[in-house]
């Protein structure tokens, strides 16, 4: 069946057939000859010095390959930003589940008992488990003051607004850790060859991050490290940086044993030991005029980074920049801070700081509304950013975005006014209380500030012998549709049918570095480069006279075949050029933070059943402006999936911490929504276009994560008249709040 080729149509998933027939090969489906299995011995205490390692009796240790920090040929760290995270603990552990030793054996069943038989004696060191404890600095666990990073955003004269304010509204908001919970756990296979170097295959989002980390660890040059992405069963950021760690582990075992090694985490290990969303605390203090206009304010945004820095500065950056929401702030001071605690390092998870700070902003808007005496609808109307105004970082809004109009459309789609009226009446009777909640927000697409310039992504489009083309990028398919969308773009540009375009499996030996698959940049930034590279390819054929400027698909194929026959396969490359009108001041954290923003308004309808204090989301409207919808089915899938995760973030997904370790590290006890828990999620798009994105696309992958939690919690407040400022918000928390007189700040 021929699928539509062009942009704006729902071309079928490029790798879809393999997925619906069970033929798709994920890392655990792959076996190499003579392959060993690997496992990790991890710290069972929060923090301490390693005194002694005892290999227990009853295990034939000579059958096992054992690797420790001493076996690392290069640097014992996982190269990222600060390089403070060891690959293997050497003398000291700084968090529960920290990797200490690696074991390999031909029989994977022989590993758990061996891991259990290793006992380690420690001299314990005092742990620090919360943001508050970390801030107290009575125990320093990182650097000189437990602070990984600070940012300061200042606009206008904040100190002068307090006098002019008719209202000063304060609030403190908390979000908890959240587990990415990709259904495929982390896994890697590694092979080591004295001449060829290290090769790893695995579940990952960023092949060149892994490549960079392995270079440092093995002290090998670029061409001696090869990273290949296997079909990846979900990432959501959870496979942005963590795969470097597991790849390093598998590769060390492969080096020591001389055989390929496969490490697959089971769910218990994956949840307890790998990254989660940064817990956050946001404090707002806002000066508001009597007619509800924001005059200025202070925002204090703090995230818990766990024991090592890893990506915390970047998460902090995005959270800080988004902390003011889609509103006009004449003046503002935003202090962002990432602190260290004794927990496995927190990491990337869809939204990357923005869901945290936007939760606070949208809850705070409802609070401001209450204080001022207007509705949640009105308070937002009076403060929406308009085209030509500046954001908190003084970026001029160039999009012809009309948030007022978008807002109005969302309210209409949600039947907001009618339902509010009806619920006010119905809530008088019975234990079921209904409410409506809003969230308006934005999400910057692509890397922040000079990030894209720094990445300097390169993309290739190749002409093939059969006349078709192949896209070569390091951007990975993790379910979001990379393969499909990039092939659509190439096809559209070259006037070819979608079926004639292939995309290479990301293999660092074969593909150029188009940057990591994160930050909602793939369709927009990488896609634009695919468009450029495709044009370059076309120009090559036109330039040598084999193809006319205006050609049919068949003519293109013929020209391509001829070219390849004469000169071999050829590759057209395109490198990222930063737009001339995007300026970012990294020192003062001011300027054009992102090439563009996507905008959204979400509306949630909930029922709170006071018999069980349980919340049901009955209806959800997700309206967003995303530039150009390249593939409607895929785009909608991103939104429904993101909204589901956002509802989980708000109502279900609680990490139970004890002494820095996740206690509920099984799917039975870490609750994500099932099909029975979600409402119909009604998705709508507006398209304003985007000069910087492929065919006008903006990023959409992370946007849907920002809105659901505040929309749902705002709806719960509407239903009950009780404010909740902390998520996840469980029935137990609602119960605690409604059965005491005062408004609680329960955590």
């Amino acid at each position, binding site marked *: *069946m021929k699928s539509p080729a062009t942009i704006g149509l*729902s071309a*079928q*998933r490029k*790798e*879809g*057939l*393999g*997925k*619906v*027939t*069970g*033929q*798709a*090969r*994920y890392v*655990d*489906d792959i076996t190499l000859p003579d392959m060993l299995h690997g496992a990790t011995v991890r710290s069972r205490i929060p923090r301490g010095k390693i005194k002694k390692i005892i290999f227990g009796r*009853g*295990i*034939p240790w000579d059958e096992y390959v054992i690797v420790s920090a001493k076996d690392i040929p290069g640097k014992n760290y996982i190269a990222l930003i600060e390089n403070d995270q060891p690959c293997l603990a050497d003398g000291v552990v700084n968090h529960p589940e920290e990797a200490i030793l690696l074991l390999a054996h031909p029989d994977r069943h022989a590993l758990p008992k061996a891991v259990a038989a290793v006992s380690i004696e420690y001299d314990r060191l005092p742990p620090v488990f919360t943001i508050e404890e970390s801030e107290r600095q009575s125990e320093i666990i990182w650097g000189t003051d437990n602070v990984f990073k600070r940012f300061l955003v200042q606009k206008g004269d904040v100190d002068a607004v307090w006098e002019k304010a008719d209202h000063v509204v304060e609030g403190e908001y908390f979000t908890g850790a959240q587990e*990415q*919970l*990709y*259904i*495929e*756990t982390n896994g890697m296979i590694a092979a080591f060859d004295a001449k060829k170097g290290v090769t790893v295959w695995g579940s990952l989002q960023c092949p060149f991050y892994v490549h960079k980390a392995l270079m440092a660890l093995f002290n090998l040059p670029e061409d001696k490290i090869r990273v290949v992405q296997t*079909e*990846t*069963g*979900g*990432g*959501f950021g959870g496979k942005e940086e963590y795969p470097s760690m597991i790849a390093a582990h598998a590769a060390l075992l492969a080096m020591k044993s001389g055989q390929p090694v496969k490490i697959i985490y*089971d*769910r218990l290990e994956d949840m307890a030991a790998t990254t989660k969303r940064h817990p956050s605390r946001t404090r707002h203090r806002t000066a508001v005029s009597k007619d509800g206009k924001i005059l200025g304010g202070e925002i204090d945004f703090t995230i818990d980074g766990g024991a090592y820095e890893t990506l915390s500065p970047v998460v902090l950056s995005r959270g800080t920049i988004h902390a003011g929401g889609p509103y006009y702030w004449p003046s503002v001071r935003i202090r962002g801070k990432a602190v260290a605690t004794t927990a496995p390092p927190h990491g990337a998870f869809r939204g990357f700081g923005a869901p945290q700070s936007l939760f606070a902003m949208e809850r705070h808007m409802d609070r401001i509304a209450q204080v001022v005496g207007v509705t949640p609808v009105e308070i937002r109307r009076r403060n929406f950013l308009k085209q030509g105004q500046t954001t908190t970082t003084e970026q001029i809004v160039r999009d012809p975005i009309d948030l007022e109009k978008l807002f109005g459309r969302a309210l209409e789609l949600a039947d907001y006014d009618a339902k509010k009226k009806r619920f006010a009446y119905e809530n008088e009777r019975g234990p079921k209380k209904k409410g409506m909640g809003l969230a308006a927000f934005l999400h910057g697409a692509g890397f922040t500030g000079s990030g894209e310039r720094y990445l300097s992504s390169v993309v290739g489009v190749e002409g093939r012998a059969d006349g078709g083309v192949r896209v070569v990028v390091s951007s990975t398919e*993790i*379910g*979001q*549709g990379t393969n499909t969308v990039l092939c659509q773009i190439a096809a559209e540009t070259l006037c070819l049918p979608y079926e004639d375009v292939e995309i290479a499996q990301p293999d660092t030996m074969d593909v150029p570095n188009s940057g990591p698959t994160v930050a909602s940049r793939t369709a927009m930034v990488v896609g634009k480069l695919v468009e450029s590279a495709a044009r370059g390819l076309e120009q090559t054929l036109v330039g040598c006279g084999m193809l006319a400027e205006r050609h049919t698909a068949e003519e293109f194929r013929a020209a391509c075949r001829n070219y390849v026959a004469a000169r071999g396969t050829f590759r057209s490359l395109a490198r990222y050029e930063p737009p001339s009108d995007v300026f970012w001041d990294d020192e003062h954290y001011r300027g054009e933070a992102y090439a563009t923003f996507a905008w959204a308004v979400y509306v949630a309808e909930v029922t709170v059943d006071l018999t069980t204090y349980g919340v049901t989301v009955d209806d959800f409207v997700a309206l967003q402006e995303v530039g150009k919808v390249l593939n409607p*089915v*895929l785009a*909608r*899938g991103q939104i*429904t*999936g*993101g*909204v*589901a*995760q956002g509802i989980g973030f708000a109502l279900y997904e609680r990490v139970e911490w004890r002494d820095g370790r996740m206690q509920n590290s*099984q*799917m*039975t006890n870490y609750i*994500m929504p*099932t*099909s*029975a828990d*979600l409402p*119909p*999620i009604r998705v709508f798009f507006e398209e304003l276009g985007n000069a910087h994105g492929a065919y006008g696309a903006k990023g959409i992958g992370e946007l849907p994560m920002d809105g659901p939690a505040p929309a749902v919690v705002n709806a719960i407040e509407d239903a009950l008249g009780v404010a909740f400022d902390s998520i996840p918000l469980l029935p137990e928390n609602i119960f605690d709040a409604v059965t005491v007189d005062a408004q609680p700040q329960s955590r």
Partner: protein
Amino acid sequence: MSDSVSQCEFSLRVNGVQTFVRACSMERLLDVLREKLGLTGTKEGCGEGECGACAVLMDGELVDSCLVPVVQAAGSSIVTIEGLAVDSRFRALRETFLEYGGAQCGICTPGMMLAAVNLLDKKPAPTMDDIREGLSGNLCRCTGYAQILEAVAEAARRGAAR
């Protein structure tokens, strides 16, 4: 090391083919399928019977193969995603999963399709509630379920059931 239990021969019908495997009685059907028979389409997502990624049909009933010791599958008929993949009766389901975006990362897809087939066997004209219930034991982290449910509903409309 404790006395290892010897392996036995188990006979089961897998995707219509009479199959003999040598395994320990306690080996999980999931591992027998994946490691001994090379049928890697069935996935492990949690090992606790919560996610449904390992779902197969055992004598026509949907079961989580991570919870079935192979001795209990002896003599039974197992259908995995590989069996569905070549069964023309389920072409409509494969097509709708692709058309409606029912598969994103694909890791839940085999289990999800097995659950869908099992549902459509019992309820050839299911309501949305029936579909939601029939698939409630299969977790998907990518889609929010919407497009999966729609794919199943459309497959039913196209007469995907036996």
